[in-house]
């Protein structure tokens, strides 16, 4: 299939297309409400590449292939998309087998360290005197543990987020690093695959499991990333630009998924 790259797109649309390429057909995928960009990316994958994906969306399971366009929804409790439901997910059942609701997951963070360990609890040395109290781990600790693959996603990229050491760890990444960083903790080898930010995509170098720059978004330099990261990143000799969305991806994003233009603001 010939791919034509789009020219005019936002960074959010670029990231949505990148996330779309992580989804595999036939698997179960949780679509959160709060993170608009990963949500759009997963729906894009479904409509263009993964007709058999099982979508976990606002506490229901469904398939949206035949929906001409997505109604906007803003919260995980918005009952209106329940009209799409093929099944209800009782939230307390999620603990019975978290893999029944998703094979992949996107984890947000207040802080991320070089090994992809992340923190949603709060910022401050003393847990009893936090300088910033975060929202809490939500389901990230358990979901990241049980899914096949998880991805870190943050909506800004600066030295407050990318730190040498997290004040607290709510979702374990590659532990203290090394090829067996997770196995040493007694954990399976399903640490974070990529860390996705408004500046770049990063992966984890296989031997050290330290974060490594994979690609920079159009208009961003390697130096921009280094300057805004509070630890030493592994920088390969050649750092490509993040692959732009195709014309078709951008059209489907704008006409069927992001009708309100949240990714264009």
């Amino acid at each position, binding site marked *: 299939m010939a791919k034509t790259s789009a020219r005019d797109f936002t960074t959010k649309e670029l990231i949505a297309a990148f996330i779309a390429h992580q989804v595999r057909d036939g698997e179960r995928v949780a679509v959160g*409400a709060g993170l608009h960009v990963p949500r759009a990316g997963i729906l894009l994958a479904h409509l263009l590449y993964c007709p058999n994906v099982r979508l976990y969306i606002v506490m229901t399971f469904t398939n949206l292939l035949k929906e001409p366009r997505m109604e906007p929804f803003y919260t995980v409790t918005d009952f209106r998309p329940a009209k799409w439901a093929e099944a209800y997910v009782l939230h307390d059942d999620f603990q019975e087998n978290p893999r029944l609701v998703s094979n992949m997951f996107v984890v947000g963070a207040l802080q991320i360290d070089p090994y992809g360990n992340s923190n949603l609890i709060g910022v401050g040395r003393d847990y009893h005197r936090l300088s910033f109290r975060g929202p809490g781990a939500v389901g990230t600790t358990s*979901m990241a543990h049980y899914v096949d693959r998880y991805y870190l996603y943050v909506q800004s990229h600066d030295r407050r987020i990318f730190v040498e050491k997290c004040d607290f760890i709510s979702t374990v990444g590659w532990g203290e690093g090394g090829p067996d960083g997770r196995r040493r903790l007694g954990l399976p080898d399903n640490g974070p695959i990529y860390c996705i930010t408004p500046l770049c995509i990063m992966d984890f170098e296989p031997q050290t499991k330290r974060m490594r720059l994979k690609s920079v978004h159009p208009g961003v330099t390697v130096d921009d990333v280094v300057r805004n990261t509070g630890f030493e990143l592994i920088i390969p000799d050649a750092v490509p630009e993040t692959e732009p969305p195709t014309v078709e991806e951008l059209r489907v994003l704008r006409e069927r998924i992001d009708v309100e233009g949240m990714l264009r603001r």
Partner: protein
Amino acid sequence: MSLERKSLIIDEREAASWIRDGMTIAIGGFINSSHPMAIVRQIIRRGVRDLTVIGPASGGLDLDLLIGAGCVRKLVTAYMGGEHYCPVAPMFRAAVERGELQVWECDEGMYYCALRAAAQRLPFTPWKAGIGTSFPEVNPDIKVFPDPITGEPLLAIPAIKPQVAILYAAHADPYGNVQHIGTGFGDRALWRAADRTIVQVERIIPNEEVRKNPLATSLYGVDAIVRAPYGSHPFAAPGYYIEDAEHLREYVAAATAYAKQGDRGPFEAYLRKYVLEPETHADYLEVIGIRRLISLHEY
């Protein structure tokens, strides 16, 4: 002896009178939906103190209001925010940062483990997710122990038992048969774990209606039913109304003035206008106004 079946319907004042200082209670729903607000507001009016509150797996601004009103000593939930209304619940944030509120730190998986252990009268539920994290350090109730089968580390998530669970659902008959519209989120886990359960509903339905479709009965044998139309306001009620976005923004602005600037005035004004001055749920609905209420349709 009378052989009449007894109605379990009580009003929100009687329901709130079950809740006394220092108790462990649970409040159901999920973030912006399905909270038993008529009872929550009445608990605040009564000035109950030092509660341990088990929220839903992910808590919302109903709990934030209880915290701001000074009712809560300790909170059990894995998230406190309002999604796009506010990333972190403001009074929660302020109380934790000032050292005035204890948090039983957990994620949603650990939260359900604690309720399951309580329901099964077990000391703990074993859980793997969370090994290598800070949870055992910031929540000393969670212990790391070696799995007796493989020797690998596991977490022991201790039981947390609500003395009273206060839930919200669409319908119930007078005898404690409850039917949610939608999924009911994690309400069943709270009901299974609790000693007693009160369910506030939008509408009381006849027992015959329940018998038409017993599969729809999501909770049975609960202890009391409270009828409160529009009783989840300002939060959503599946099948009845969406959340009141304008009201939630008003709340968030008032609470944020305290969290960010230390100005308690706007929150106190909110509390007076919407909680303390209206004496009953009906008075509260009059303050909100019929036009606003009927504008919150789902279509």
